[in-house]
């Protein structure tokens, strides 16, 4: 038998005393506690509860007046033989008098004589009855005591006279089941059992003597939720850790950048579709960013004819004003090239995980703003095999088992590749990488190969979190965040 709480035991004993049937309010315990105990006992199959809807009555203001002053027909007929109705009306008010006369006539307590004026004459019956307590009054007294065992006819009259209001009430009855009878027949002992351990019990040493009630350990406990990192941050922190453990230094850049650093320095031709107003957010304020003229001149030559890079260049007329236009960076590769321009001496391994902006409409897979995981390896004789190796190492550390590489294209890398991981039987593209072109590195005095990558964060987050809508990540529903397990 499962453990019974003292309250449950008390309820069972009460039931036994009352032939296995009792109304909860009859028990000398807080009603909530009784019902709680009943619910637990019911779940253990020891009691059953039934609910019936019963009628109750409540005395209205009018009814209270009847109780206090007696019925109005009794009042107006008191000490009266024959009287002008007008006189009565002056004394008791027109409305009361007309109602009272109505009832008195119906009961045969009086009659009305019509001469020049209307007279009220009390009958013998009337003289007798007004001395007695009337059934309506008796009924009201009973109702006042919550005794509703009253003749239906009287109830109807009282309702009509608006002396009482009917109310529906749920009446609960708790019954012992057969299983319950078995238990109570075996005898129920109430010992002092401790439920809540208190400081008093500990300090006084009382705990040595008392018994601790066994709890139902399967019983429900309320949910609580600790504060939490957003899953995207959890992922970013993990990636940060992986790259810094592999010897990479984190760098940061700015949202607002120039076309020069974001595009031109990376050998993206000025008529490249990604530079369209369709794809890139340009700034109205600030609309221009100052760039050193000499630097622009150097890069202009690379675009126009390759400059000193050994390239034939894109062979078009470079627009130097275009280079100064301000935009919201479209990739974090701009952080990398700025870093390399300032730190051209190898080796360097740096990374950044930051936001980038693209002119995309919001839908389940696109946002105008998202994160890129950027990184480079810059060292003597860096090569294509190392690029594959470092990316494989990263994704393996992220927990992906199958990783593959295939050719791709970016204006600033050659060779270029795309990284795919296998997830639930499908190959999913997670990012691009390559070796920076000489057109990108040579102008900044970068003499060794630079292995570079730009990987998607949100896409990886979506597959790891099982999301099919990217918006979930940026329009945090707190219920979702509360329930979401931590990323291990």
């Amino acid at each position: 038998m499962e453990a019974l709480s003292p309250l449950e035991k008390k309820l069972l004993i009460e039931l036994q005393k009352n032939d296995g049937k009792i109304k909860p309010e009859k028990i000398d315990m807080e009603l909530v506690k009784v019902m709680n105990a009943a619910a637990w006992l019911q779940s253990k199959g020891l009691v059953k509860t039934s609910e019936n809807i019963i009628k109750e009555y409540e005395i209205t203001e009018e009814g209270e007046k009847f109780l206090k002053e007696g019925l109005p027909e009794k009042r107006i007929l008191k000490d009266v033989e024959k009287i002008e109705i007008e006189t009565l009306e002056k004394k008791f008010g027109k409305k009361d008098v007309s109602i009272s006369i109505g009832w008195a006539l119906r009961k045969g307590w009086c009659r009305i004589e019509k001469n020049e004026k209307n007279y009220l004459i009390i009958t013998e019956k009337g003289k007798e009855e007004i001395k007695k307590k009337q059934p309506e009054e008796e009924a009201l007294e009973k109702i006042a005591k919550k005794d509703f065992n009253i003749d239906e006819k009287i109830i109807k009259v009282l309702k009509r006279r608006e002396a009482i209001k009917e109310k529906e009430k749920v009446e609960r009855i708790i019954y012992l089941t057969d299983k319950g009878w078995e238990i109570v027949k075996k005898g129920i002992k109430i010992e002092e059992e401790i439920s809540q351990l208190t400081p008093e019990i500990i300090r006084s040493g009382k705990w040595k003597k008392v018994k601790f009630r066994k709890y139902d350990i399967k019983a429900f406990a309320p949910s609580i939720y600790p504060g939490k990192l957003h899953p995207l941050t959890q992922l970013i922190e993990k990636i940060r850790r992986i790259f810094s453990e592999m010897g990479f230094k984190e760098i940061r850049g700015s949202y607002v950048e120039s076309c020069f650093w974001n595009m031109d320095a990376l050998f993206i031709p000025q008529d490249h579709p990604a530079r369209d107003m369709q794809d890139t957010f340009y700034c109205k304020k600030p609309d221009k960013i100052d760039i050193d003229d000499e630097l622009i001149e150097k890069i202009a030559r690379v675009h126009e004819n390759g400059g000193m890079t050994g390239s034939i260049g894109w062979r078009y007329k470079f627009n130097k004003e275009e280079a100064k236009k301000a935009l919201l960076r479209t990739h974090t590769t701009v952080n990398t090239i700025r870093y390399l321009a300032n730190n051209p001496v190898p080796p360097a391994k740096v990374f950044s995980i930051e936001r980038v902006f693209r002119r995309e409409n919001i839908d389940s897979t696109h946002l105008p703003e998202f994160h890129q995981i950027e990184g480079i390896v810059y060292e003597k004789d860096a090569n294509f095999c190392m690029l594959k190796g470092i990316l494989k190492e990263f994704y393996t550390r992220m927990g992906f088992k199958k990783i593959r590489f295939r050719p791709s294209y970016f204006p600033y890398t050659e060779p270029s590749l795309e990284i795919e991981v296998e997830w639930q039987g499908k190959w999913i593209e997670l990012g691009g990488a390559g070796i920076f072109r000489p057109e990108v590195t040579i102008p900044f005095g970068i003499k060794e190969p630079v292995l570079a990558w730009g990987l998607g964060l949100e896409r990886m987050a979506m597959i790891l979190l099982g999301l099919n809508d990217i918006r979930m990540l940026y329009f945090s529903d707190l219920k979702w965040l509360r329930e979401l397990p931590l990323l291990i």
Partner: protein
Amino acid sequence: MPVITVDYKDLINLLGKHIDMSILLDRLPMIGVSIERVENEEISIEVFPNRPDMLSVEGVARALRNFLGIEEGLKIYPISPPKISLYVKDNIEKIRPYIGSAVIKNVKMTHETIKSLMDCQEKLHFSIGKDRKKMAIGVHDFDKVEPPFYYKAVEPKEIKFVPLGKEEEMNLIEILNKHEKGIAYRHLLEKYTEYPIILDKNGNVLSFPPIINGELTAVNQYTKNIFIEVTGIDKNAVLSALVIISSFLAERGGQIEQVEIIGKEKLITPDFSPKITEVETDYIKKLLKINNTEEIVKSLKRMGHNVELFNDKLKVYSPAWRIDILHPIDIVEDVAIGYGYEKFEEMLPISMTFGSSFSFQKLHETMIGLGFYEVITLSLSNPDKEFKKFEMEGNPVEIKNPISTEHSIVRQSLLPSLLEILNKNRHNELPQQIYEIGNIVYFDGGKAKQKIMIGGVKIDAKTGFTECKSIVEAILRNFGLQLNVKECKHKAFIEGRCAAIIVDKNEIGYFGELKPSVICNFELEYPVIAFEIDVNKLFSFSQQKQSNQQEQ
């Protein structure tokens, strides 16, 4: 990026050898294209912008024949020397100066050929042509007109012809104003008073580039010989596109016959002579870790190049349609692709470097300890949210070409975004306490500057300034700092219930109780407290304090 649709049977036919669909789908991505989807026998292929020579099934087949070892090395099409001429008048020079042209004889105009020709023409217009601006292609039935041809600028009303797809004659102005292609592309000519035209010996109109061809020379299944003209403002684009499209028709069995272009200079087009790149063998070996020269040569042949070896150098002959070869590095990539990306072993970097990161872990721990939830919101915002609803003024970075009014500026404070999150969570249980660590952008001396802030808000039936002060104090305490306050006038907060956070006489943030009007603006119904602190200042004061302790 352009996507082309290829019919499997047509592709096999062009390959000249049966290859299973599954093998094709496996190998295609390894040449450097993406399979978008496969439906029945139709394969949709995404072509990277550096390879317009693969913008048609003929080009894909040509690359695959090399890659799969069906053919080896440089593809050479038989080319006949010019029999006809095209004269370029000087007056075109300021409008659309460049033209290249070819005649393709004995083309079998099957359904597939016509479809592929139309498709790739459109794709080339977009990719190389930048929507016909840099170059536009016209394809004509050669037998309907009589050479020589003339390319010149004319008065718009001087010439009338029946444009493609129409029945009545129109002059050039009428075409620009009424013809759908005229309306779509007239912006390319809006600067000019004279327009380009291509005529034959008898004054018949072949084309009104870059707008529309004449109906007279429309190509159909009965066409046998084709005349191609490519006009444009970029000589490179014009000549490359001509080579690419001519080569596609040669793939279909057509014989290329060159055309003599006579203008200021004489030019024979199309020019199929291979591009020569010299590459040091060591350059390839170092970057790719392939030590065997023979393997390098084989790989290049698999990518359609011919190679001559001398001393330590390779002389690489690349097909004329490979417009992506700008530098020896592009040859290196072709070696890598030809060799097979999957075959390279994986290595790790050798250099010794020290790792470091900008983790905000301690700040996150503090906030989580206080029971806050971290949220992430967009930094793109709008003046309505940032200023009107938050009752603030500002001077934000503005976007010239926003995609929606909702995202037209970059935020200057994290708090409006957090209030918006509270708004979206109205249906969820209270209390709610959330924070974000993120960048904001502001102007300092006309320059856009960025800083990292932590913003936090709490909404509950009973919360206020004092609780907010406790929270801010707790954060500072965790960083070894003591909170000092100064009264702060911030329009979003109740007057007298907003304080500036002072550390060592420096203001590093503010906190307080939001105004009911601001709460209502975000459609919330409970008191809200908020704080925002400059994270870098918090960290640097904290570090300063710790290093001071070390010195004492």
